[in-house]
């Protein structure tokens, strides 16, 4: 037995000795295609970019550090740095928290798989296609863009628009046609004063006839005078059959229903308020002595919320009065926030799935022990789950930091104009593209920006190396 074993071993040794060199070479050859590509397309170009960054715009003359100096001194590139900082500060943290919350909550429902699939789907779509969806969601017109439609609905709820909303650029004063003049704060009032027993006629134009139809307007009728009361009519003072007749109440003219009118004393104080009927008539009864004016309140003309330009460069921080550099560094344009929201929609599924996998691998006994010891749900989550998940959360967070440092697709697709170099939503990656390839090319500056991007990624690289070599 022993002899045979020795024999065999010798045999193996002999065979291996013969072919060892060949195996060695063969397996090394397997590395060649990958190594060649990595060296030619990743490693060497990275070194070349570092070299380019010390050259001028056409890569023909060495210029020392001047590209780097201009990176940190011109407002255009400072904006890009600011946006990268903003993305890195806000996005990875928020998306990790959302992923954690979704992962933890979805453990409690029976349809967790369906939920996760729905949240996860956007990752599979290109950021370009998703961005185009969001250009629609953020459309300015509340009739087209969902975001503004929602804001409008909420705003109308708390702050209802008038029955006769003005269209864009229209003023209440422009509606006044006969017997009416503009009053302060967008109201209208009778041009003459009136006493008890009197009747006023207030002719308006410039209102869409459809609005009147929707409100159920009837043919305008001048009310009869009434003892001790002030009566009046508000009507559409425009006759299709007789356009030149101004101030006459004609059969094809409609009253203005549902209009809020007030009776004002000569000192401007309000005595009474009422609403016009379908014929455009109103009546203030038991009016005391003195002279009065009838006012059509401004609220009648209040337009509905007309939309926020979510993809606009306007800053959320008050930086308007600052110098150019301070403005570049401290502004927070609304478009950045909108893009971050859209990007959350895209990536929350990623963080959720990774955290959920981490949760599934957790030591259930520790969680149960915490429960048995009387810890509340929140205490268990805060003191047991989170610390145990910390390594996973860190990986997710770092992955997202790397991701947004290189943020490009969403920036150029949601901010077509504002992603140009110097634009309010431009980032390092978008500047590298535009300065390197898209008109106004400056190879040196683009390379210096790319090098900055690379330098910013190095901590993440070291984190990965430490994590992976430690395994």
């Amino acid at each position, binding site marked *: 037995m022993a002899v045979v074993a020795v024999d065999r071993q010798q045999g193996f040794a002999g065979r291996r000795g013969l072919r060892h060199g060949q195996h060695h070479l063969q397996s090394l050859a*397997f590395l060649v295609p990958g190594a060649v590509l990595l060296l030619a397309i990743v490693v060497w170009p*990275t070194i070349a970019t570092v070299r380019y960054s010390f050259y001028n715009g056409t890569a023909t003359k060495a210029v020392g550090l001047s590209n780097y100096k201009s990176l940190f001194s011109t407002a255009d590139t400072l904006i890009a740095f600011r946006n990268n900082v903003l993305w890195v500060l806000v996005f990875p943290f928020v998306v990790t928290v959302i992923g954690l919350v979704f992962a933890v909550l979805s453990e409690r429902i029976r349809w967790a798989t369906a939920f996760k699939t729905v949240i996860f789907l956007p990752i599979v779509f290109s950021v370009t296609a998703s961005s185009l969806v969001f250009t629609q969601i953020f459309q300015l017109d509340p009739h087209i863009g969902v975001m503004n439609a929602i804001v409008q609905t909420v705003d109308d709820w708390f702050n209802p628009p008038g029955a006769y909303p003005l269209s864009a650029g229209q003023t209440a004063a422009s509606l006044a046609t006969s017997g009416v003049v503009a009053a302060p704060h967008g109201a209208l009032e009778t041009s003459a004063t009136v006493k008890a027993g009197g009747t006023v006629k207030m002719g308006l134009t410039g209102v869409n006839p459809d609005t009147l139809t929707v409100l159920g307007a009837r043919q305008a009728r001048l009310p009869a005078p009434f003892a001790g009361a002030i009566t009046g009519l508000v009507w559409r003072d425009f006759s299709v059959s007789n356009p030149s007749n101004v101030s006459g109440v004609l059969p094809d003219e409609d009253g203005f229903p549902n209009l809020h009118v007030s009776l004002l004393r000569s000192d401007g104080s309000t005595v009474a308020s009422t609403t016009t009927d379908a014929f455009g008539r109103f009546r203030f009864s038991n009016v005391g002595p003195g002279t009065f004016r009838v006012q059509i309140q401004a609220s009648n003309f209040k337009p509905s919320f007309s939309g926020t330009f979510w993809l606009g460069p306007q800053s959320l921080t008050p930086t308007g009065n600052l110098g150019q550099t301070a403005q570049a560094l401290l502004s927070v344009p609304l478009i950045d926030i909108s893009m971050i929201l859209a990007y959350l929609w895209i990536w929350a599924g990623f963080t959720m799935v990774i955290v959920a996998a981490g949760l599934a691998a957790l030591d259930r006994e520790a969680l149960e022990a915490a429960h048995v010891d009387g810890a509340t749900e929140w205490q268990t989550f805060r003191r047991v789950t989170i610390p145990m998940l910390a390594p996973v959360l860190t990986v997710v967070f770092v992955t997202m930091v790397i991701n947004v440092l290189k943020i490009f697709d969403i920036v150029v697709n949601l901010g*077509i104009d504002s992603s140009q170099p110097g634009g309010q939503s431009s980032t390092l990656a978008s500047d*590298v593209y535009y300065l390197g*390839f898209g008109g106004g090319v400056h190879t040196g500056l683009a390379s210096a920006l790319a090098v900055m991007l690379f330098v910013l990624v190095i901590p993440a690289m070291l984190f*990965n190396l430490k994590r992976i070599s430690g395994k």
Partner: protein
Amino acid sequence: MTTIPVTTTPPAVPAVQQPSRTRLVLKRLRPSRMVINIVLGAIALFWLVPTLSMMIISFRPSGLFEVSGWWKVFTAPSQLTLQNYKELFTGGSSTALGGGVPSGLAPGSVLDALRTSLEISIPATILVTAISSLAAYSIVFGRWRGRNAVFLTIVGLMVVPLQVALIPVAALYKDMGSAFGWNPFGTITGVVIFHVAFGLPFGVFLMRNFFTGLPTALIEAGRIDGAGEWTLFRRVVIPLGVAAAASLAIFQFIWVWNDLLVALVFLGGDPHVPLTLFLYDQERTLAANFWIISTGSMVSIVVPLIVFLAFQRHFVRGMLAGAVK
């Protein structure tokens, strides 16, 4: 004497407390569970809105786009039409919003972009999977020195932003043109080469992690039996590594399919562009044709969607293994 009360009281206490306690627990649990269901339901609906809106827009007449929101469909379902999809084949000149988008497979059409996306993604996926597997095999089962150093270098390359390579590679491609008469700049080949190179670090990482889990004895036994490395790779390692390779391939396919930047740099201005670049260009044409943007987006979404739904597990596994790119 004392044992009797001790034995009689315990059953009495739970008998009274048990129902009230369970009821208490139920009371505390039921609403919270219901609340979680409602909240997550609302979130899921909310998450569906963007996708749903793009889908509905693509099925509404293009003329309505500037007129009213897509949600009007819920009150007027008769608005839905296949017109936009038909125009992918017949060209968009007849639409109210105008815009002569070429039809069929003509350069600059949606279907041509679909074909170009496939022409880029499929070779890039196959090459990354094959080259990564070979390299990972070499790193795990090879005997040469410095394997670990090479592996760690590759891990380091995983996070290199591809922006640092764009300018020199573009120059390299053009130099190749003047030196060998073959210029990959502006060609699909150029795009594929770039994608393969930048897909390799992740690919090697993923495949290496899988291969290290395989028993080395298997390879050793094969070597002893006189099998060459290629045979071992083909007959032993690949059959075992199919799942890992599938994860990598699916991940890589979706990654390349959705790329914009590389195509923009190396194919910008070319009449044959992938879907992402097609959409990017359409968004920048003067009279943005939303019918083509919405239908084009839907077309661009369908392929990765099918791939994802068919190979969901592989995709997620690849993502979990990497989580760093």
